[in-house]
């Protein structure tokens, strides 16, 4: 007997045909998406690595076809019509796409999340509509560092944790609250005028670190500034699917919704670092904009701060020991 739904517009066919067809489309669509994600590097849709995702995708597509045609013996009697086929396959594809985004989220946020060293002490400070955190070391800090995260992400925390483990005090916040955070930073630094100060930022935070007004009005003496993967030009931050090369969909959404403006020309003593596998800014664009930039092999955009070479660079720049527990060799001095 025919089963119909949606005011009789859609037919469900005999037995479990509709259910099995939807399941078939769901599994095969997920397989297609995993294959395409692996082929073109959409980390925000991949459950596994690129190579394994391609293989998983092909396997799922093959299994889906084999399963459906094995268990559905009545494919040569009238079944679902064109309208039903289109509707069910569309629904299944949309669901498979949501599952792929979820897979990317789980993979990036849970399975591949780099370990962050938690600081011995933390203080929360309201900065405008946002919140900043002071990460404080045991004992007196040897340097104060303002760390500005990319909007919507917290991957800079890895570097912050390493700096704190080496006796730095870090004020960590999202770059969109940088003005308010800078005021808090100045206030703390004013209490300890002899202690060195520095700034580091990732992405939009890097652009903010490079901005000339960072050290003006009133003047703020920073011994060093480290800009990780600054965008430099607004065109590099436009919205689009390319964000899924670097991060999950939720982070991409948050990052592209935050207010941001392109940085001014580099001023003063800033060191600029990019990953040579940055999915948002090409190496050619970065070199054209900042010829003096350093490129770290194998690093992407958001995980740049977690790369050991970048952590070493930061420690050397800020006069911190490269290894934890060792006394600083050279205090941070202003770069020429």
């Amino acid at each position, binding site marked *: 007997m025919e089963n119909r739904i949606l005011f009789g517009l859609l037919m469900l066919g005999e037995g479990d045909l509709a259910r099995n067809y939807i399941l078939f489309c769901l599994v095969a669509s997920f397989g297609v998406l995993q294959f395409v994600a692996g082929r073109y590097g959409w980390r925000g849709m991949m459950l596994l690595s690129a190579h394994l995702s391609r293989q998983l995708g092909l396997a799922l597509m093959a299994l889906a076809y084999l399963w459906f045609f094995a268990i559905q013996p009545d494919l*040569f009697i009238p079944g679902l019509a064109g309208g039903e086929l289109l509707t069910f396959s569309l629904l299944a594809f949309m669901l498979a796409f949501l599952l792929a985004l979820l897979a990317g989220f789980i993979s990036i946020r849970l399975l591949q999340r780099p370990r962050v060293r938690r600081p011995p002490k933390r203080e929360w400070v309201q900065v405008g509509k946002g919140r900043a955190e002071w990460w404080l070391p045991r004992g007196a800090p040897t340097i104060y560092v303002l760390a500005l995260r990319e909007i919507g992400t917290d991957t800079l925390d890895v570097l912050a944790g390493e700096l704190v483990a080496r006796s730095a005090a870090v004020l960590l916040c999202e770059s969109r609250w940088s003005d308010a955070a800078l005021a808090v930073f100045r206030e703390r630094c004013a209490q300890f005028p002899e202690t060195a100060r520095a700034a580091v930022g990732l992405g939009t935070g890097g652009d903010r670190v490079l901005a000339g007004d960072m050290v003006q009005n009133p003047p703020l003496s920073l011994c060093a500034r480290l800009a990780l993967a600054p965008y430099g030009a607004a065109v590099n931050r436009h*919205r689009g699917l390319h964000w899924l090369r670097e991060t999950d969909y939720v982070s991409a959404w948050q990052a592209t919704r935050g207010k941001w403006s392109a940085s001014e020309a580099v001023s003063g003593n800033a060191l600029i670092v990019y990953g040579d596998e940055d999915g948002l800014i090409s190496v050619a664009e970065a070199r054209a904009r900042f010829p003096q930039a350093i490129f770290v092999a194998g690093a992407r955009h958001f995980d740049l701060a977690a790369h050991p070479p970048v952590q070493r660079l930061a420690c050397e720049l800020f006069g911190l020991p490269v290894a934890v527990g060792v006394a600083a060799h050279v205090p941070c001095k202003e770069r020429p």
Partner: protein
Amino acid sequence: MNPDVALFHWFNQFAGQSVWLDWLVRALVNDYAVPTLFAFVIGGLWFAGASQAVREANQRGVLYALLGLLLANLVVKVNWMLYFRPRPFAIEEEVKLLFYRPAVSSFPSEPVATLIALATGVWLYNRRVGWGLLALTIAFALARVIAGVHYPSDVLGGAAIGFLATGVLYRYVKILDRLVALVIHTGRQVNLA
């Protein structure tokens, strides 16, 4: 004998001759294998492309494919309202049938029109994938004739409708270009294109 009927019988003679050919024809001709594969390819094509330019081309292809599919289906349905052609198994003698007996008009072939419309849309912007889909559609169309479901002219007519539907939309309906651009732009705003 009508050349169309003669050609139909020539193709249909291969049905029932070989277990493997019958299996292949049934695998191609059913409503689930090839059309669903097209859906998967087109869905995946939306996300394919190493650069934004290539991706946008693929996405344009997908959108024109879907628009062509809608128009092709409309034309086929109107055709059916105006003219009914009996299926080969309904009127020809000694037809070997490897499929169920559809009740709708034999001309034009709606599945072929649909698949050709999709393949043409993709082909306009991605020749490699487009040729692959066209080759698959040709195999599907041949299977339909061999299986005894269509006359050769039915699938040719369906192919012409599908090709023209997408081609006309692409070439002459310029406002669709803006619609396609708007859809892609909207997709980019939500990081999905």
